[in-house]
């Protein structure tokens, strides 16, 4: 099992992925603009992708890279649907603050 790629230790890759993930998470929780939330979610996806690829290299197993591709396609689909929802919500409510869109509350 390799412990570093291109001279960078595996720990650093993982640290970067974690940082990216938490930045994304913080953005998704804290920001009220749906577009920014979507970008934050993309950030978390990419953090996960980075982790997948690093471990794929580390274990010499291609499954992680395949998963990364899957995540990219799912993210694309998700972005398309999410943007459509945002557009519809904007049309009906004339605002894009997610805290004001709570018609589905229990």
């Amino acid at each position: 099992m390799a412990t570093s790629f291109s001279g960078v230790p595996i720990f650093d890759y993982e640290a970067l992925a974690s940082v990216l993930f938490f930045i994304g998470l913080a953005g998704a929780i804290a920001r009220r603009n749906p577009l920014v939330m979507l970008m934050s979610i993309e950030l978390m996806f990419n953090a996960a992708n980075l982790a997948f690829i690093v471990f794929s290299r580390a274990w010499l197993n291609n499954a992680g890279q395949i998963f990364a591709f899957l995540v990219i396609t799912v993210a694309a689909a998700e972005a398309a649907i999410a943007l459509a929802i945002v557009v519809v919500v904007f049309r009906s409510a004339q605002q894009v603050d997610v805290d004001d869109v709570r018609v589905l509350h229990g």
Partner: protein
Amino acid sequence: MMFGCCMANPEHIMGVVGSYPLLIALWLLPLLGAVLCWAFGPQLQRAAGWLATVIAFAAFACTLASWGAGTQSLNGALGADQPLVRWMPGFHLGLLLDPLSLLWACIITGVGALIHLYSIGYMEGDSAFARFFAYMNFFLFAMLTLVLSDNFVGLLIGWGLVGLASYFLIGFWFHKPSAVAAARKAFVINVAGDVGIMFAIFLIVQKTGSIGFGNAFAAADTYGPTLLLAICISLFIGAAAKSAQVPLHTWLPDAMEGPTPVSALIHAATMVTAGVYLIARCAPLWSHDGNAQLLVGTIGGVTALVGAVLGMVQWDIKRILAYSTMSQIGYMIMGVGVGAYEAGVAHFFTHAFFKAQLFLGSGLIIHALSNEQDVRRMGGLRKRLPFAFIAMLVGVLAICGIPGLSGSFSKDAVIQGALDHGHPWLYAVGIVTAGMTAYYMFRMLFVTFFGRYRGDVDPSELGIRHPEFAGTAAHGDADAHESHHAPAWLMNVPVAVLIVPSIFAGWLLYGGANSPWHRFFDPQFGAASILHVPVSEMVTTLVTLACVALGILIAYLRYGTATARDNAVERLRRETVGMWPILTNAFYIDVALDAIFVKTSEALGRLVSRVLDPHVVDGAVREAAITAQWSGALVRSLQTGLVRAYAVFLAVGIACFAAFYAFHGVH
């Protein structure tokens, strides 16, 4: 036992095939009459009465024609006995004619036919004339079912149907709330009695696997004391309810709400004596159980006494007769209870005549006085209604037991029978009751027929606070009634015919062991029933007679002397006002029964339908629903609608998973 010879071997119970069609005709004719009168009542109108009467007489003719079949069976055969209806496997219903059922059938159809004839006159002009005769014929059918059945289920069917007929006829004038209440009371108490018989059937079927009399009696000595006593008590509950024995007698006085011919036929001559029939029929069971005999004899004696005591304080002429009926049936039950079957049955026989005559006589008075029933508002009717006076006089003399008339033979035979079978206390009760009977009967006679007519006196002067029986209130269609009177002979002939057996029927008992009565019933009861008649037992006769004379004397001094007659209004007022509440309320037995059974079950019903059902049973279900709703509300509050809150929940959840695996490792 002596019944072994009669009933032990089922093959001895042979059908008398020749008379069988006759028996079926006798049984079904009244049903046909009832159906015709009911279905074609509006078309038949007055003819309905004649149709029903002719059918009753035809049934009587059939009974007489089948006489031979019921008595020829000397060697203990029960008479005609063939399965008629295949009810279910092992249970067949059939008819039987033996001396006992023959006697009852004779009285039912004979006295019944006379009362039908009388009713044509009495019910003239009633708007439901045809319906009345449909019910009367239906009653005959039901009563014949009761006495002609060769098994307990048939008997129970008849038992229930006579109760139904009685219910319809007590409540015949159903727009009167008091009649409706009386009918319901009679029916419910009688159903309680039916249930007693039902229970006896269950026990008998469990033991013998059969419902036939023959099998049940043949196995009498195999029952064991406990079961036998249970069967006898269950049967007696039925007998007590039907025959108005203490404490189930309270329906009988109220039953006088029915038309007077009904009181004569059902509530004096026939239906109320069904209990006597039942015990006489089940004689093989009773003869095996001294405790049951003691119980039944005692209750019979108590009823005789209570009926007589209450009869002494009544003012309604029909209620006087009703309590007297209760008292006389007490005698009969005492007779058959202690084992003096022939004497008890004989008293039924004579009582049917003189009591029917008394009731029909009172009906003549009530009819003539436009439905007045209160003796205080009568008086002096001897001259106005001489025929009714003679009829009532003969009846009163017969019931009092004046020697030579029918009542003396049978009553003294019952009293003597109590002593012969070892019940001196019942003997004493019988003698005292005879004196009291004489008192209240002569009281009625003096107040009704002697002195001055008091119908025009203001009721309050007589101490009558609620003149409920006055005038038209008692009768259904008084207006129509007044307009066209039926010929008097329609009502007088049956009464006149009844006078003959009222006087002479008792002579059948003359001669004790050699009497025609004993010879007739020997195959039925064998040696079990010792028949002593008054002439051979002079002591009993003399003591009873002394008591009777005393009763008549007191009645004469209180109501019959010239002074008493002249001051009748004042006397009656004082007696009415000063009467003890315990007597006017009939020992509060009615109130007690009401409190114990009616009030309790109604309270339970209210508890169930107002508390248990909505709050406890349904409450449990509702609690479950409320819990589901409440937990739903709890979980629902998490669903805030804030997307970012969901994101936090998600993050926390992931953190929890991560923490879990961090501490425990992946595996």
